[in-house]
């Protein structure tokens, strides 16, 4: 069975960020929330089920992915059909979700005609979070109750204690930790070419068109992104759209088997007002090891220069583990 070189980085779509997933081709860089991802066994005849889990620490935001269940089936003409379901959470001051959870269901199809591969994907996500609307509603109810409390006074501790009890009573009655579900979606298309294998490489991206090529362990990708996402944190508001593009370069080295390391960088630009703090320069170092035919572990270090300011370094660290049933 042919096993590709260590693949790299699975990203999750966060609001207006693009999403990508690594295949078992050459190493590639991805945007958004990154984690070292294992190579997926998508060979014809292989058991197609794969379970992965990963976590990104010290990122912006940090995230954990409890599980990601993937089913890929490769046909004789190397077309691939796959579905994915995952559960992930996000924390961090820049996260659009406050201790939120995200359920994702995705379907992707790669059609091959000779050396040409075109991939289409559809991501459906449901995000559970403490929405701003719920915060506002609870806040108004609490304010109404607090308005009936006797105001405290700086010089009167007894009034302060009574007011404290009144506030806590209002919270007990009005605050519920229930989270709201907000749907989100993203659609995409991507295409790529692997010059080394003389095949179109696979690259899953959300609303992205990409041309990629590789010579040996080096992969070069030119990406044009477009995305329409309903931002879950402001579900009552407009959809966010963005367009951008960039160049990504990655190279994979095989250390002492079964350890491999990938190094890469990318320069991206964003042409939409909602790009916000999209980084324009990123360097990623990924290290992975195939523990067995069924399990691979990986870690990724990421540095970003936000908005072109190379001094604004943001270091993200992520870890992943995957297990593939069968061989």
């Amino acid at each position, binding site marked *: 069975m042919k096993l590709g070189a260590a693949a790299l980085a699975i990203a999750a779509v966060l609001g207006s960020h693009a999403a990508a997933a690594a295949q078992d081709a050459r190493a590639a860089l991805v945007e958004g929330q990154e984690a070292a991802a294992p190579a997926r066994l998508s060979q014809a005849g292989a058991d197609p089920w794969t379970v992965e889990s990963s976590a990104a620490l010290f990122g912006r935001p940090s995230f954990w992915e409890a599980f990601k269940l993937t089913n890929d089936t490769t046909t004789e003409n190397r077309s691939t059909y796959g579905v994915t379901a995952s559960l992930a959470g996000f924390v961090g001051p820049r996260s659009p979700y406050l*201790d939120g959870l995200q359920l994702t269901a995705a379907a992707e199809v790669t059609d091959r005609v000779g050396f040409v591969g075109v991939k289409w994907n559809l991501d459906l996500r449901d995000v559970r979070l403490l929405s701003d609307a719920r*915060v506002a509603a609870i806040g*108004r109810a609490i304010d109404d109750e607090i308005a009936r409390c006797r105001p405290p*006074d*700086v010089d009167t501790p007894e009034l302060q204690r009574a007011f404290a009890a009144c*506030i*806590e009573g209002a919270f007990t009655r009005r*605050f519920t930790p229930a989270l709201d579900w907000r749907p989100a979606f993203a659609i995409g298309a991507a295409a790529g070419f692997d010059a080394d294998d003389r095949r179109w490489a696979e690259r899953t991206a959300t609303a992205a068109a990409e041309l990629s090529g590789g010579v040996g362990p080096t992969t070069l990708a030119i990406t044009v992104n477009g995305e329409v996402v309903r931002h879950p944190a402001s579900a009552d508001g407009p959809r966010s759209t963005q367009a951008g593009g960039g160049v990504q370069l990655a190279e994979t080295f095989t250390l002492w088997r079964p350890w491999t390391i990938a190094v890469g960088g990318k320069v991206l630009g964003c042409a939409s007002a909602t790009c916000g*703090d999209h980084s324009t320069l990123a360097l990623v170092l990924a290290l992975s090891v195939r523990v067995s035919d069924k399990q691979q572990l990986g870690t990724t270090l990421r540095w970003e220069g936000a908005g072109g300011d190379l001094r604004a370094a943001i270091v993200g660290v992520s870890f992943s583990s995957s297990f593939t049933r069968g061989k």
Partner: protein
Amino acid sequence: MPDPTDLRARVARLHDLEDQLARAIATGTQAGTPLFALSHPDAPPLAALREVAPIEAPTATNPCELAVGWIPAGVPVTAYFYVDGKALPGGGTVRGGRVFVAVPDALLRPRTKVLAVLRFWQSGWRYQLWARAGGLEHRLGDGTDPDVTSGSDNLVFKEVVLPIEVAP
């Protein structure tokens, strides 16, 4: 239709200020500069992006402004400020890591005492309380959640004296 280029720059500036504010509060250093920079009416360029706006924007006739910055910014906070037993206009529940309240001129006099009441909705918070008066920024206090595993210590009462030397 706002100029996209200008909008991108303002959004980037907004996020940069928010990062500076969060880092300053996390490290205990002076957060006054990024905090009051975020109180400018233009600081949040689009309400739809972050749904955060100053409760009461400062005006030229407001010689004193109170501000609280906290982390994590996503934690909602119910904030009230009291002078002489009366709540200052603009109190309520806010999300976004900062809140601003102007002190009415009628209440400004030397040694005015203010009672800040902050109720954090979740644990793990840190905050800084500031006042801007006479063009100068004054750090009035700060605090940290004493026990992140406890939900019964998220109510803060902070007594401060406004940095007013002469009645306006």
